[in-house]
């Protein structure tokens, strides 16, 4: 547990490397939740870099939730669905994001359809 603290805090500088070691540390400490959260973040980073090339926008550092929201704002529903499935966003929360995006955009016609 203690090791991870220090490693995590460095994450802004040398993201991937320290994240990997944090993942390892959580594994050693048998902290499964911590382990899977770090592992997921690593996955997210890789995915975001891929996406950045596609949509030409800075995504690294955004959370899963915000990434998905950004995609919905860009109306890239296919990619958003992919995020939802890959990162297991619960049904309920996914619809919250959708509704929020539509409301923000003032798209009342789409909102009506709910």
């Amino acid at each position, binding site marked *: 547990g203690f090791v*991870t603290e220090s490693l995590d*805090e460095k994450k802004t500088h040398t993201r991937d490397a320290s994240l990997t070691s944090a993942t390892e540390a959580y594994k050693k400490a048998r902290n499964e*939740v911590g382990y899977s*959260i*770090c592992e997921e*973040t690593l996955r997210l980073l890789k995915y975001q870099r891929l996406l950045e090339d596609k949509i030409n926008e800075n995504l690294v550092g955004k959370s899963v939730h915000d990434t998905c929201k950004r995609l919905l704002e860009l109306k890239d529903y296919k990619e958003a669905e992919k995020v939802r499935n890959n990162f297991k966003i619960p049904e309920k929360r996914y619809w*919250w994001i959708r509704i929020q995006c539509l409301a923000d955009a003032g798209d009342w016609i789409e909102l009506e359809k709910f």
Partner: protein
Amino acid sequence: MSHLQGGKVDISQIQIAARNSLINLLEKRPGSKAIVWDNSLAGPVGLVAQYVVLKDYEVIKMYPLRSTPLPTTNVKHIIFITRPKLAFMDLIAQNVHHDSKTWTGPKKQYHLFFVPRKSLLCRKRLEHSGMFGSLSSIEEFKCDFFPFDSDLISMELPEVYRDYYLENDPTSLYQVAQAIILLQKIYGPIPRVWGRGMAAKQVWDLITRLQRENLNKDLKEHQSSCIDRLLIIDRSVDLISPLATQLTYEGLIDEIFGVNNTTANFPADKFLSTEERSTQSLAEDKKQVILNSGDKLFSELRDKNFNAVGAFLSKQAKLITSQLEDRHDKTVQEMKLFVQRLPSMLANKEALARHTAIAECIKEETDSYEFLDCLQAEQEFLNCIEVDRISPFIEDLIAQKKPLIKVLRLICLQCIASSGLKPKVLEYYKREIVQVYGLKALLALTNLEKAGLLKTQSSTRQYTVLRKALHLTMEDTSEINPTDISYVHSVYAPLSIRLTEQLLKSNGWKQLQDVLGLLPGPTVDECLTSDMLNDSTTSNVVLVFFIGGCTFAEISALRFLSQQEELNVEFIIATTKLINGDTFLKSIISTEEDL
């Protein structure tokens, strides 16, 4: 400073002692001065010595301590006044270095005053930076307490709980011990002491040791004491009370607008009449109001449940109007009396307008669905309803990405109410929070776990038992004419104050044995006077010391108790910091860099 006097214990003595300490230090350095403050001190020190006072001692400039170079000032002395923190030493070294290099006029002197005590570590740091020699003097500005009101003093140390329970650093406990000794020096030794919790015990042990060491120096055993009993409450004993939303007038002001050093800022437009609103420019969009018992109306309002405030204000309004209109058919004599009273009536009218405006600002917030829903969720937890499941309300807050601190506050409350969350529930919250708020939130969660605010369920249900045994949740109590301390949160009676109440009623821990086993940490129970009779008869001033902070609602609850005849006590409240759920959690989840 009349608002500090009035009780049996004269708090202004603390103020005078602190002010003299500062003035003494300033007088020793004749000539013009500039003071550079560490930001956390500039506000509180104003409670001890206002700027006008400092001006008399040739202080002509004041600056906050920053990493940017000091503005060029032509003064003889530059005085840094800071807490003994390492980060500040680096800033001071930078500042002194830059200022002495660029300055071409007559030679300046640099001084450093530590509040309240020097630290060897800081000294070493300065030596290391090479600037130690440039400082003409290093002194102690002995100011342990900042006087807030006639019954309230604060050390203004926001990180005591964090330091001890998260970082395992007992330094601030030493400071607390020193502060209590100081109180005993001013007001006489306190014969009866109780306390509960790890930090409370450690502080008491430190006090006993420090006093033994100093025994020869100031032996004042026979000095009569103004304070009869001391109760040390360690915040870790009651983590629930700061998490519950405060519903008293002063408590709500703190929750919504924040009270710092008895001062709060409100949106200015609420304080203007309709005409003023259209004519005045919006140059100042904040209205600053000083909140202490110097304001008579406020001292009557502060401890009331907010639901009783509206009625009280309108009653006052009617009273003032009738007073002002009552000037017809009068003899000359009566008219003269009326004119004499006029200024005070007008002042009352102004105070009334001010508090009506504040109450409107609060009402705007407390009427919102967001506030009410949150309160409802909170009260369900406190009543142990659905505490074992994932709360759909919290789920929705996360999904809408509401402020993280609000979410964490509710989760922590649920955790305590259920005496630890089910592992599955905790895991779900963790995943959801990190997915929405990002990985940084994981650090916040880790800190909360280390500090004991988040945990998984253990076999004993402490809260369930405590709730029953101490009647922590009360149904059908009046908010307007309260009969029980639970009015401060409308449903929930602060555990800390319930303990105090029980302790004073039975004059000891004995009757509380069943309950005590459920609270963390050891007990302190000392009787320092050989004269047992003296202990139970006349004595009735109780000093309640909160290690790790206390809330305004807790203070209101204590004031309520002091009005109950059966207890016959007067309280002096000392705390390391005034806190609410948000500020308390923030002090724990912030990372080193934010501090």
